[in-house]
């Protein structure tokens, strides 16, 4: 009997022990807290390391770059109240505001920006966006190899930052405003290493908000930063980022009112939601496209590529299959990309006409059949079986099934291969496929950000497209100082890759989300970030 009691006690003690060692939760923030969901736990919110859009959204609220992007997608003053560019376009000088401070109350100076820029180049930090944002700065090649001081970023005094470029870059302002170039506090980073960005106590910021509570996997609570220079304009006392992973869970939390905005909406709810005022759909700069492996037969034949391109009913794909959450793509560069004169890039693409006429599907199919016959495969005879590779998420599988059916109409036999995500990326990059799903969401609004994907040596050129004329147009766009010439070169590049059917654009990305009408003053950018810093909650 005693032994049995002992055994029972043992079990109970173990269980109680397990139950008791859970951490106590701190009380949630008080005041006007906006509760939102933009994604699950971000892998990192170290500005130098982040590459996700949910992490990017959080960084917009925690940090302020030298320049910012406003709600009209224009570059405006940030921590720098003014800036100027030299005649040759190579020297950018930024003048900081008076009395800038970190969220711990200490002074923020030009040197903090210099340190942060150099840190992004540090090979030991290995920032994924280093080349994107600083590749054009003089001395970058030496800096990325380890000689950080070679990077031509200087602070002649506490309030001035001077950046020297190796070649003119008309959109360098967009890069300066990019979240990777947020300032980080040198002393804190050096003392804590990578771990500085994993806890509220060491996450020192300079933006409208700082992190006051962080429970990984649960929520990040940001509170208003009293040391922010524009704190008077901030109406919220805080923002609670609920790190919900499951779309149905997010939707439940939205329905109960626990969360006022959710990014992850269950796709099966879309038919009921569309038309409601709190269901928002806005375009972002990005395109869902198919990569054709140019190193494999039969895709070496331009007529085959064009036939495959034309045989797709894009209005059906975007409107019906994707439930209108994507937009029909007639070009490679969709809405939101900004031309050198500030207008929409798509407005003057191909002389203002779409590259692909998406309205007349029957005619397109006839043209596709003719092209296939011209290529020596009448009704698809003689064509090998083609494999389409994709990972399984979102609409990828239904699109794959549709392609199978659409291409069967012109006599093409398609096999679908579903590949697990982490294996899919290297497979596509190594060119181990016939046709693969692909997509790109822009980091900033300059068209070069997406057109570069087809530059022969680009690391993301998954189709291994190689056309010297295209490369020459891109080269010209990089070096010219004349905005009109640059614009022409970029448009020419798109003309060439569309004429070559270098890829098959299917649809333009949109963000779709639920946002309560109680939220005012918030906006969503074409980069896929949400901006709640100037938002308010009305009852």
């Amino acid at each position, binding site marked *: 009997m005693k032994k049995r009691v002992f055994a029972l006690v043992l079990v109970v003690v173990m269980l109680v022990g397990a139950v008791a060692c859970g951490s106590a939760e701190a009380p949630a923030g008080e005041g006007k807290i906006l509760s939102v969901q933009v994604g699950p736990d971000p892998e990192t919110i170290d500005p130098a390391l982040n590459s996700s859009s949910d992490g990017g959204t959080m960084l917009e609220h925690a940090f302020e770059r030298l320049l910012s992007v406003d709600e009209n997608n224009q570059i405006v003053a940030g921590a720098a109240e003014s800036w100027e560019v030299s005649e040759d376009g190579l020297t950018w000088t930024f003048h900081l505001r008076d009395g800038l401070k970190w969220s711990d109350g200490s002074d923020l100076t030009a040197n903090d920006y210099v340190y942060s820029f150099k840190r992004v180049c540090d090979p030991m930090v290995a920032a994924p966006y280093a080349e994107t944002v600083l590749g054009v700065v003089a001395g970058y090649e030496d800096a*990325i190899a380890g000689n950080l001081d070679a990077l031509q970023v200087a602070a002649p005094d506490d309030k001035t930052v001077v950046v020297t470029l190796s070649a003119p870059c008309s959109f360098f302002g967009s890069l300066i405003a990019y979240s990777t170039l947020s300032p980080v506090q040198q002393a804190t980073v050096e003392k804590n290493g990578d771990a500085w960005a994993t806890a509220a106590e060491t996450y020192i910021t300079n933006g409208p908000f700082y992190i006051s509570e962080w429970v990984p996997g649960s929520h990040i609570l940001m509170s208003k930063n009293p040391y922010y220079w524009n704190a008077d304009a901030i109406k919220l006392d805080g923002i609670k980022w609920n790190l919900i*992973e499951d779309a149905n869970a997010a939707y439940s939390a939205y329905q109960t009112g626990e969360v006022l905005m959710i990014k992850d909406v269950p796709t099966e709810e879309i038919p009921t939601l569309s038309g409601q005022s709190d269901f928002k759909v806005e375009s972002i700069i990005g395109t869902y496209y198919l990569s054709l492996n140019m190193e494999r037969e039969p895709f070496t034949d331009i007529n085959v590529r064009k036939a495959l391109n034309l045989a797709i009913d894009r209005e059906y794909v975007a409107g019906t299959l994707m439930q209108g959450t994507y937009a029909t793509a007639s070009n490679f560069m969709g809405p939101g990309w900004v031309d050198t004169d500030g207008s929409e890039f798509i407005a003057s693409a191909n002389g203002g006409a779409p590259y692909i006429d998406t309205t007349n599907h029957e005619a397109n199919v006839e043209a596709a059949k003719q092209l296939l016959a011209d290529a020596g495969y009448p009704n698809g005879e003689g064509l090998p079986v083609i494999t389409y590779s994709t990972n399984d998420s979102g609409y990828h599988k239904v699109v794959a099934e549709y392609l199978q059916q659409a291409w069967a109409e012109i006599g093409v036999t398609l096999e679908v291969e579903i590949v697990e995500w982490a294996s899919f990326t290297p497979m596509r990059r190594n060119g181990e496929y016939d046709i693969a799903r692909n997509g790109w969401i822009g980091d900033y609004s300059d068209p070069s950000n997406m057109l570069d994907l087809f530059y022969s040596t680009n690391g993301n050129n998954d189709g291994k497209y190689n056309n010297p004329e295209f490369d020459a147009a891109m080269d010209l766009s990089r070096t010219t100082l004349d905005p009109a010439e640059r614009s022409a070169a970029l448009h020419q590049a798109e003309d060439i890759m569309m004429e070559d059917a270098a890829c098959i654009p299917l649809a333009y990305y949109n963000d779709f989300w639920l946002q309560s009408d109680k939220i005012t003053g918030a906006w969503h950018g074409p980069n896929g970030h949400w901006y709640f810093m100037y938002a308010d909650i009305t009852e």
Partner: protein
Amino acid sequence: MLKYIVKRVFLEIVTIWAVATITFFLMNMVPGGPFLSEKAISPAATAALEAKYGLDKPLFQRYLTYMIDAAHGDFGDSLKQRGRTVMDIILMKFPVSAKVGGISVLVSLLLGIPLGCIAALKRGKFLDSLISVVATCGIAVPSFVICTVLMYTLGVNLKLLPTMGLSSWKNYIMPVMALSFYPTAYIMRLMRSSMLDVLGQDYMRTAKAKGLAGHVILFKHALRNAILPVVTYVGPMLAYTLTGSFVVEKIFTIPGLGGEFIGAINGRDYTLIMGTTIFLATLIIIMNVVVDIVYKLVDPRIKLK
């Protein structure tokens, strides 16, 4: 007994080593890597990252380094959650899962054992049928269905309970219900069948014949013998439940360890895959040893060798 425990511990260390070795080589055979994303990072940055985490070394050398470090209690840095060590992640997330899981196990035991006994004692009666129906449902219905139904009724429609997080005691109700449904049902069935088995034994008739009180027969003679299968089941069940459920944690936004198992594999976070696997293996093994000891205490006829 001490000799037995020492022998078991030695054997279990060998088992953990085998689990770790198999996992290490299997995960490296799978294509992909931790530093790949939709947007290619520059070759220089990839090379720097690989050098930083030692991934540029030959596989066998990496294996040796890892095993030596792990033997010293150093499970390395997470490759994806930069700035956190694997130990940090486990120590931060395990207590959360263990708390929800622990309560669920207690609930399953407290409900499952008595209900199983009642079903056996009332065999063939209405109560037995009712319990059997509930138990069958509990085993057949997957946890994500239970989660969704709970969430929809108690959370969204009736607005009785919060749907996410663990900020108050109310937050525990739905996850605990979801987590304990299956084990409760399983324990009920186990308890019922083993109780029926025991009730049919000769010594039960003897006990009744010599005039022992009903509760003495039930608790001293029947329950003690019938509970053995439940003890066997509870050991590994405890290990799995304490380390968290991927589904339940995902749906109720619980910052537990369950999601890390899956997340680590999807992200090819090699060090975290190793850390969580070794942790779970160790826990299961400890639970099995404990179960063996509890066994011996419950049933003196069992000899531990």
